[in-house]
């Protein structure tokens, strides 16, 4: 309507607030998610900083026990439910899934907008719970403590999580239908980018798992409000049933966090090796295998609940089985790197750091899947270190790598590559310094969730806190240079990395309808061998 000189892209199509808040453009919704998720990340990080500062000394001299309990609970809730689970699907997935398959939008754009509003409302409820007293149950809400004993704001938080679940369900539903029904002509299943495969598998987990946690926290809420005894052993209920239902979702939820990240890494590794990914169909199918296996391993969270030894053995074996498709991916990435023409732009550095962290996280998962070892390190910092390596090392580095890779596409601006590479390395160093000592601490017996510990553990805790400081710097740097790039960054070409994929055939940033004409796909994904090595548009 105005400013006809500049070509319209999705960002400049309309500038009014209303055009953003009522948008049905998947790309704008992705940006809305990006902003809200970043806010939640900062909040969750602030809680983490509090935890690490408290643990500098063996005595609780910064916070009271109650405050400390609330700190680690809110850190977990904010990071898991409001950052890690939505991060890649809601930001990168929303932006890229339709473009990568050659569609004009997701199948249900209004439902997509609805999912963002649901997310915001759910997050607001959780914020309300925090401001009005906090929650101290741990993010796992174990009953009967959460349903019976705790006097903190469990109900409001549970409502927040219940609501947010629908955001995840709707995103998953939208992706499944879009991927099934809206692929461009010629884009067969086994020509799809691996990013799409990963999001397809993730969406299945979202749709099948999320309702279970939603109903479970709803039952906890009902139990609190009406003083029922659904999970209270004094009244005939069974707290172990809560754990089964909780982990039936919450273990697969780890794959909601990590699978999209694996999809991103596949794109990055193949692009910056200038090679077609090794064993494409194995990498694609392994996503589905991980999603499937993810649903049948929840019992490894419950080895110490007194379940029968046979149940424990079966869950142990099944948990080992998850290592197979995970290893398929890791080995195929390695094989792709082998004899590739590697270049180390920032996204690639993030991807390589991811490989390091994910490998450590994955291998220590085997320690925990082993019955005997798990009983020894159960509820210690070993577990904390393990899931941070997977969920934070894996999910966040994939998220950051993807954000760096597609930032030029999303914003139309290049960021300074050198500082971005440095930031990746700072994150890697800070991350290992933070969490590697925690493996040792856990093995030595430091339990999680305590803010007092014996003096012998102090050195490792100081190291960990120092690492958290470095990690914080690594996380903050991208926020600065990304914002900087919006104002001063060089204009991004359509395909700054010389990558394959439909998203790079659109201008940066893409127009509202993504494609002037529906593209026709005639070859497999990642046919880098046929491409000339591009002259890289190095940043700034």
């Amino acid at each position, binding site marked *: 309507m105005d400013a006809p000189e500049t070509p319209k892209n999705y960002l400049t199509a309309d500038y009014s607030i209303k055009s953003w808040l009522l948008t049905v453009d998947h790309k704008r919704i992705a940006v809305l998610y990006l902003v809200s998720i970043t806010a939640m990340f900062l909040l969750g990080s602030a809680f983490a900083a509090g935890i690490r500062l408290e643990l500098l000394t063996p005595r609780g001299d910064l916070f009271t026990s109650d405050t400390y309990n609330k700190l680690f609970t809110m850190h977990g809730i904010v990071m898991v439910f409001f950052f890690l689970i939505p991060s890649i699907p809601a930001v990168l997935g929303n932006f890229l899934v339709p473009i990568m398959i050659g569609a004009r939008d997701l199948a249900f754009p209004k439902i997509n907008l609805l999912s963002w509003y649901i997310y915001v409302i759910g997050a607001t409820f959780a914020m309300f719970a925090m401001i009005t007293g906090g929650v101290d149950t741990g993010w796992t809400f174990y009953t009967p403590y959460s349903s019976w004993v705790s006097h903190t704001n469990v109900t409001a938080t549970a409502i927040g999580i219940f609501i947010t679940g629908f955001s995840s369900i709707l995103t998953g539903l939208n992706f499944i239908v*879009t991927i099934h029904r809206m692929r461009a002509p010629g884009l067969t299943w086994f020509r799809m980018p691996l990013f799409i495969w990963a999001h397809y598998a993730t969406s299945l987990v979202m749709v099948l798992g999320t309702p279970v946690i939603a109903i479970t926290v709803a039952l906890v809420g009902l139990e609190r409000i009406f003083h029922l005894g659904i999970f209270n052993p004094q009244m005939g209920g069974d707290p172990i049933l809560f754990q089964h239902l909780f982990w039936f979702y919450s273990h697969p939820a780890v794959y909601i966090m990590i699978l999209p990240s694996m999809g991103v890494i596949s794109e990055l590794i193949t692009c910056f090796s200038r090679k077609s990914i090794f064993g494409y169909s194995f990498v694609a199918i392994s996503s589905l295998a991980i999603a499937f296996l993810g649903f049948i391993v929840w019992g490894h969270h419950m080895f110490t609940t007194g379940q029968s030894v046979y149940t424990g053995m079966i869950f142990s074996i099944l948990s080992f089985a998850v290592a197979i498709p995970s290893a398929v991916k890791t080995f195929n990435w390695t094989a792709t790197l082998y004899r590739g023409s590697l270049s180390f732009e920032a996204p690639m550095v993030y991807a390589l750091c991811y490989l390091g962290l994910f490998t450590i996280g994955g291998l220590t998962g085997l320690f925990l899947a082993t019955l005997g070892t798990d009983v020894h390190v159960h509820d210690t910092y070993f577990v904390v270190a393990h899931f941070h390596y997977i969920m934070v090392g894996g999910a966040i580095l994939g998220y950051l790598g993807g954000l760096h890779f597609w930032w030029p596409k999303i914003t139309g601006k290049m960021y300074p590559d050198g500082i971005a590479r440095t930031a990746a390395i700072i994150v890697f160093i800070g991350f290992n310094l933070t969490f590697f000592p925690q493996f040792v601490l856990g093995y030595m017996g430091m339990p999680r969730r305590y803010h007092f510990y014996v003096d012998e553990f102090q050195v490792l805790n100081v190291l960990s806190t120092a690492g958290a400081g470095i990690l914080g710097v690594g996380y903050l740097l991208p926020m600065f240079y990304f914002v900087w790039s919006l104002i001063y960054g060089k204009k991004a070409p359509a395909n700054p990395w010389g990558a394959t994929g439909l998203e790079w055939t659109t201008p940066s940033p893409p127009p509202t309808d993504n494609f002037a004409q529906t593209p026709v796909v005639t070859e497999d994904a990642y046919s880098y061998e046929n491409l000339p090595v591009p002259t890289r548009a190095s940043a700034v």
Partner: protein
Amino acid sequence: MSNHAAASLAHQHQFDDAEQQYEASTLGMWVFIVNEVMFFGAMICAYVVYRVVHPGVFEHASQQLNITLGLVNTTILITSSLTMALAVHGAQQGKRGQMLGYLLLTMVLGAAFLGIKGFEYAHKYSEGLVPGLNFTYTGPHADESQLFFSLYFALTGFHALHMVIGLGILGALFAVGARGMFSRDYHTPVEISGLYWHFVDIVWIFLFPLLYLLGLH
């Protein structure tokens, strides 16, 4: 942004054609139904577990339910599934009168179901069998019996909520259909609403024996 009337008659901007839109909408509803199965499934799982843990108590508690009313409601709901199917058939044939008539009949049956359910709930309240509001049951194993009624109200309440939403959807279909929005060429909303309605009925087909009949001799 899209001009609504024209868009819903033809197809929305993100789709290539009406066929693709129809397929996407139908698949979307099926995925949603699978998701709903997991919602009910988690609660039914809890119910089954406690039924196994406290078999005698649950059997005794379930005998407090009114089987006659449950049976009447089951019949009503199955009939409503039939009328819904006939409404969808009418829409596919482009017979507006038939579609609207059966939609109305389905709504009446749905409302009758909810009315009977409300009567049952009120009766339970007067008997002091509603956990959290009025639970004065003093027989042996009062706590475990409360567990049964908690799950009874959670399951049937969640089902009734779906019925209420279903009635809202049918009302909207009726209003839109009366203005002639559906034709032989475009009747996707009627069809996918039909899927939803059948799903809600099927859930009841599982709930009725689980809650009412299992302890019957």
